[in-house]
């Protein structure tokens, strides 16, 4: 921490202390927020404890604000919006709101205004959590009935109630329309505080968050546990970037019933000497329900335009690295117009607990494979194969509006090298070896699904870095840089399942999160700050980006000039789109010197 001067600012709502800083006054946040307040960009806010925004209070975070938290001793440092609270964190492309650690913040300099990438930094603070009153399915809480019920609640993973009457960490209820606030252009870096063995905090955790909540442009990098996990509720998301996560990149759980479009996942690792799930990326997308899987609501969602880049290892058999998609606990998910490349294990893997306590088929529920030929409308009916169904299913299950309960369509897969992969862990018996065996059994390669097993890279470029030894039998080469724009089979798709006109999804004709001519990660994501997005700047989202603002700080300055000169002769500093950094780019940069745009 820089220049710490402990000057207490007494406030009615929460404990604060301010200290001068090279970047602005440092405000120590040490207790809950009971009174609505605004955090402004002229300060840096340092979480020194788990900070709850209590019911009724609104925390507004101004664009460009940095929250740089610090763990010391046994302290915790997460920001949690409780049921009934509101978090309004609306950044911009040029001025995102960044949650990070003090250790990271200390590396920020004028020439590297958001620091440099620290590959094995993680768990340096807590996380961001939203708790809402949407329906959840949770069997672990005594008294929760199996059918959807407004009284069903759960306590958020990693949070601790301070007393028997402390309801702050609880989520779930009977209001799927609940509003927890707005998150937009928010970047979460180096979090995921370790709480206990196998208990870490997810980068962005959403418990029972309702559909009046707005979440778009969310970035998570180097989080020890999952990147984003959603438990129940109905919240939707757009423009999600998740990099180098220590467990699952995206985890959908406990009866989430929502939609996501434009998801960009790059699997990797964030902790040296780690194991899968605790520092080394596990599943690209994990999808679950209640542990006792006949509880409802079941997870039922739709994912469009996901670009998911794996981290294939040198291992073979069942030790190849990461799964692309893991399916559990009666989940129903439609994945469309997406792109998966470079995974060390299976593309699709269904899993049931070995003790029979849950999983597909429990209590007469549909088995996994049947879901791939059962219309989505199945959830609207009661019956022996749909126990514990809700009263108003068309209200409860709104995300899927056509197709089958589970499906993958209009999707391209590429580079799943583990041809000897055993599928003995699948819920489907007798599968042959290979990464696509289960997917193909479920019809992935049927022409009607318009999926492609590509031989050409479906993104514009992808460069992997040095080899990391994960275990004696597994080494990986995480992504060093990527131009994620659609290429080859991803560039144009003759679609069989185009996005519905539902006011949320946008109709596109490409597979994956990016078209051929635009990226939405410029200027606000960690990967872009760290130079891991190699897309020429001219392809940055035009409406708000300035191509010559190479570091995305909203200004064309000496730092950008330095970046350009360092990239001379390579594509990295290319601003005019000719694929090379040269005099023309230099001229363009100098011609736009000053305030960008």
């Amino acid at each position, binding site marked *: 921490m820089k220049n710490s001067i402990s000057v207490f600012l007494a406030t009615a709502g929460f404990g604060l202390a301010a200290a001068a800083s090279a970047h602005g006054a440092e405000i120590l946040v040490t207790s809950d927020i009971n009174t609505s307040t605004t955090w402004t960009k002229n300060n840096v806010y340092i979480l020194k404890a788990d900070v709850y925004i209590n019911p*009724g209070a609104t925390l507004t975070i101004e664009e460009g604000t940095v929250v740089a938290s610090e763990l010391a001793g046994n302290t915790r440092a997460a920001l949690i919006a409780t049921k009934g609270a*509101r978090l309004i964190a609306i950044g911009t492309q040029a001025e995102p709101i960044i949650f990070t650690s003090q250790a990271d913040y200390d590396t920020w300099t004028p020439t590297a205004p958001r620091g440099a990438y620290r590959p094995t930094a993680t768990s340096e603070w807590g996380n961001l959590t939203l708790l809402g009153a949407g329906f959840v399915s949770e069997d672990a809480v005594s008294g929760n009935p199996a059918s959807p019920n407004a009284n069903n609640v759960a306590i958020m993973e990693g949070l601790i109630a301070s007393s028997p009457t402390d*309801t702050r960490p609880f989520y779930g209820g009977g209001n799927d329309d609940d509003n927890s606030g707005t998150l937009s252009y928010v970047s979460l870096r180096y979090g995921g505080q370790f709480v206990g063995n196998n208990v870490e905090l997810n980068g962005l955790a959403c418990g029972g968050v309702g559909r009046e909540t707005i979440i778009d442009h969310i970035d998570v990098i180097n989080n020890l546990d999952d990147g984003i996990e959603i438990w129940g509720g109905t919240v939707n998301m757009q423009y999600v970037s998740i990099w180098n996560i220590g467990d699952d990149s995206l985890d959908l759980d406990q009866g989430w019933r929502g939609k996501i479009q434009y998801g960009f996942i790059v699997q990797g690792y964030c902790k040296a000497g780690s194991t899968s799930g605790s520092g080394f990326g596990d599943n690209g997308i994990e999808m679950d329900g209640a542990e006792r899987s006949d509880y409802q609501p079941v997870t039922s969602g739709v994912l469009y335009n996901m670009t998911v880049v794996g981290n294939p290892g040198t291992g073979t058999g069942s030790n190849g690295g990461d799964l692309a998609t893991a399916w559990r606990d009666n989940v129903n998910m439609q994945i469309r117009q997406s792109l998966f490349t470079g995974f060390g294990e299976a593309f699709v893997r269904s899993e049931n607990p070995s003790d029979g306590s849950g999983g597909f088929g429990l209590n007469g529920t549909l088995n996994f494979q049947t879901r791939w030929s059962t219309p989505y409308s199945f959830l609207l009916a009661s019956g022996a194969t749909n126990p514990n169904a809700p009263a108003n299913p*068309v209200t409860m299950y709104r995300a899927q509006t056509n197709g089958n309960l589970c499906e993958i369509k209009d999707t391209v897969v590429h580079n799943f090298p583990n041809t000897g992969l055993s599928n003995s862990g699948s819920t489907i018996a007798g599968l042959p070896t290979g990464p696509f065996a289960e997917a193909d059994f479920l019809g992935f390669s049927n022409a009607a699904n318009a999926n492609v097993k590509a031989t050409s890279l479906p993104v514009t470029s992808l460069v992997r870095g040095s080899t990391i030894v994960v275990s004696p039998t597994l080494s990986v080469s995480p992504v060093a840089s990527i131009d994620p724009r659609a290429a080859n089979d991803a560039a144009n798709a003759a679609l069989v399942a185009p996005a519905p006109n539902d006011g949320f999804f946008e109709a596109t004709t490409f597979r994956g999160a990016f078209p051929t001519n635009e990226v939405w990660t410029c200027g606000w994501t960690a990967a872009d700050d760290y130079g891991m997005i190699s897309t020429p700047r001219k392809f940055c989202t035009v409406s708000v980006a300035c191509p010559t603002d190479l570091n995305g700080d909203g200004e064309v300055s000496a730092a950008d000039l330095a970046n350009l000169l360092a990239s001379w002769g390579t594509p990295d500093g290319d601003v005019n789109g000719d694929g090379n950094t040269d005099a023309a780019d230099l001229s363009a940069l100098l011609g736009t010197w000053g305030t960008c745009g």
Partner: protein
Amino acid sequence: MTTLIALALLLTLAPQGEPAATGAPGTRAIASSNPSLAPHQSRLLDLGRDAAEAIPVDPHERDRARVQEVVARAAITLGDLKRAERCAGEITTWRRGAVYGELAAVYAERGDRAEAERFMRLAQDLGPRVLDWQRDRIRVGVARAQAILGEAERVRELEALVSDAERGKITAVRAAKATPEQFAAILEDVRRSTASGSLDATANALETCIELAKALDADEARWSEIDAVFAAANGKVARELYIGALLRLADVRLDDVAAHATAREKAGALLAQVKSVRDQVRWAAESELPITASIARRVARADGNDAGISELERGIAAFKSNEERVANVFRGQALRPAAEALLALGARDRALEVYRWAIESGALNPNARPRAEDLAETCASIAVAGIDPDEAMWGRLNAIRAGLVDPW
């Protein structure tokens, strides 16, 4: 449109009549379009509207709109449709369309086709980015208006075309107009719907049965067929919905008490069944009290107001014992239905006491946004309940309104 019947049922079950406002100093008064509306009801609706509109659009537009809708719907409940239209006009989100849709339905019920059609058009002028669930919420009212305006032949044509969910709604409309000779045919439709396994169809079947039951008098043979449909639905629909349907069926029995000696006993059996369903699960305190309030109203009809009040007081006591576990922003939503029920049961003073409790609970939060929401909803509730607040309560309501300042 497949969600419409479920949404309509939800709205039917939702606590009726929340908001309204008073004439705090500086509150803009709206002239009532319902001559029978009492001045205090107008003042309450004005105060509720004013409290809702005091919430800053930035960053609370969605919360503001939600309580504006509550106030507008209260005005509709009180027959003050012009006021509702004015309130709706101030809403800046999709909820404006939801109020317009409801207005369309009410005008259709009144036989005012021109106004119904005007509001149907307004409701569907949604803007560029309305999500599907919001669009359907708007269409609930529009669909109801269309059904009401439709000719019998048109209804039959629709019935042949639409999905299970919507067919059930139309069947319920038919049931409401059924002659005794049509009972068997309609009930057969109900049985088919239930057997289809569609939960919406099952829920609609219960509504259809309630409509059929209204024409049964003491025809116990047919009542037993209705009871059988209900029994078959137990466990197929959520407890809240099932409880609501059972209570409305009990209402039908209770309507017959004067004419048929056994009706009270039969209603009592239904109420015992309701309590049994309620008691099968653990409820959050803020969820259980509104249900108990609904039950208490029927207990009062069956066994007298004292019995109903006793039932409700047990629920209130249970809530009080758990009050500290309920965040102050959620207490009002539990207490208002209890106050409304107490007033309906003749316990005016106690109702005022519970309203005061709700008012003070809603004023506890240090932030104006939840206080404004609570004030708006409480004003609406008092207006719909018909209570003329005493001077002290007016003073308190106005003081809370005056205190709606930063921080929000």
